[in-house]
């Protein structure tokens, strides 16, 4: 019935249900070593938004992303993702929540010696009983989802290859396919293009925008390059020393806005270019 059009961009993968909104109230995150990564952050991100989080390294943008899926625990304040409060969600509930949130990373985070397909199937862990994973028995429907996700990012042909044999751009696409296989309600990206060359970086940002537009999934991505934030996202949140110093439309953010976020004048390395 719903045979996916082979070249339909991300068309084969459908989110399990509506995409999720995020709400933060006085969210504070402090690490065990005493460093305060986020200070009283209050934000509302609507379902289906495409948001970039901008700031220097150490500004708290990575902590913000990781708090949303519970990789970093909430110290105080409240954080609601979908209909769950992260401060009180633990164990099985937390894993179920994470299952609904796709995430991609700066260093791709693929198991290098595993096949591309096995890496993408990691996206089904939250929906797979542990014994099946331990025995390496994957549901045919999960494999189908993985193949569709790989097709939607254009690297289905590599599915049996070892992940480490792929180029950086291809590896990041595998990581995107892994996230899509989760049928996510929300997509997080932590500096997704910082390890890529400019053309590949644009391609990956394009993939993220397409996921947002065609599937309606909320996307939150960290970037430190001004032009990427302006071009690919609709809303920009600026962080400096753990506090929100900018929140507004991305396209119209001026150089002065960026200088205020960075706390220094704009340098050539703040722009990726073509």
């Amino acid at each position, binding site marked *: 019935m719903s045979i996916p059009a082979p070249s339909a961009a991300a068309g084969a993968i459908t989110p399990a249900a509506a995409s999720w909104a995020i709400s933060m109230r006085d969210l504070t995150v402090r690490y065990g070593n005493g460093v305060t990564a986020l200070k009283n952050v209050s934000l509302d991100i609507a379902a289906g938004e495409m948001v970039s989080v901008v700031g220097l390294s150490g500004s708290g943008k990575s902590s913000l992303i990781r708090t949303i899926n519970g990789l970093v625990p909430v110290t105080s304040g409240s954080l609601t993702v979908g209909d769950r409060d992260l401060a009180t969600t633990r164990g099985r509930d937390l*894993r179920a929540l994470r299952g609904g949130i796709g*995430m991609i990373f700066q260093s791709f985070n*693929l*198991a290098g010696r*595993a096949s591309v397909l096995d890496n993408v199937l990691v996206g089904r*862990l939250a929906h797979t009983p542990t014994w099946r*994973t331990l025995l390496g028995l994957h549901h045919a429907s999960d494999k189908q989802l993985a193949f569709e996700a790989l097709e939607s990012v254009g690297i289905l042909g590599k599915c049996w290859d070892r992940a480490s044999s792929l180029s950086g751009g291809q590896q990041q696409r595998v990581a995107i396919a892994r996230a899509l296989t989760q049928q996510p309600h929300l997509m997080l990206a932590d500096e997704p293009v910082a390890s890529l060359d400019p053309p590949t970086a644009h391609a990956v940002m394009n993939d993220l925008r397409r996921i947002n537009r065609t599937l309606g999934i909320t996307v939150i991505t960290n970037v430190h390059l001004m032009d990427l934030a302006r071009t690919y996202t609709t809303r920009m949140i600026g962080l400096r020393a753990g506090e929100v110093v900018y929140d507004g439309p991305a396209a119209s953010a001026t150089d002065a806005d960026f200088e205020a976020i960075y706390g220094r004048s704009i340098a050539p390395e703040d722009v990726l270019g073509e």
Partner: protein
Amino acid sequence: MTTATPTPGPTSASVPAAPVEHSVLNVPPRPRGRWKPWVAAAVVLVITIITFSPQWGVAFSFDAIARNWQNGAGKIAQLLVPDWSFFPRTLAPLLETLQMAVIATAVGALISLPLSLWAARLTNPHPLVRGIVRTILNVIRAVPELLYAAILVAMVGVGALPGIIALVLFNVGIIVKLVSEAIESNDAGPLEAARAAGGTGAQVNRAAALPDVWPAFANQSLYVLELNVRASTVLGLVGAGGLGLLIDAVRTFYRYDQLSLIILEILVVVVAIDVVSSSIRKRLV
């Protein structure tokens, strides 16, 4: 390449550096403490001399060698002429030795795989569980395999079984230590991704950690197979099966010609296993 823009930039970089006059170079002072290796060497030397001295050290004297050298020479002469007719009787024990080594490696490796994951910080975030596993393994590793065999012979009787159990314990100690150390140096990224996708601890280890653990695991298992072939030849000395039983028998009757045949066989087998396993290990990329 791009349009030449007259930017006042790194001009000195493109111009070949002018020969530096022998001016005052700001060489940082040499770090102190270069005497330390010499002191360490001196300490080692002093300890060695003390252990030789008659009062405190081992009773080592060159005159014993001088007095008994003819004894030794006779034995060596016997050893140089192996008793080839003894060969058929060595075959069954030799085979048993190899079987013990293979079985012990397989069982030991099987037990070691989950233990290795539990003993590494990367794959087991619970400090208490990890500490318990590591402590048990330290105890297991502290006991030599020959002692295990001697105790187990008393417990389960003479034969290959105590030898195999002794080797399994020996193998688990080695494999878990080396593999868990290898795991610590693996990339944590894939595990974080699997955790972010909602996997349980076991799922994360299986799907994201294990693929990168295989090379170290296969490598150490093959290494342990080599060790087992060597070790299983002597376990028989305490009654735990294999060639050792035969070695003990011929040694008791001073049949050094037969002993030399056994030594030759061990040599051939050990070298063969080494060659095969190192050629396999080379292929493990």
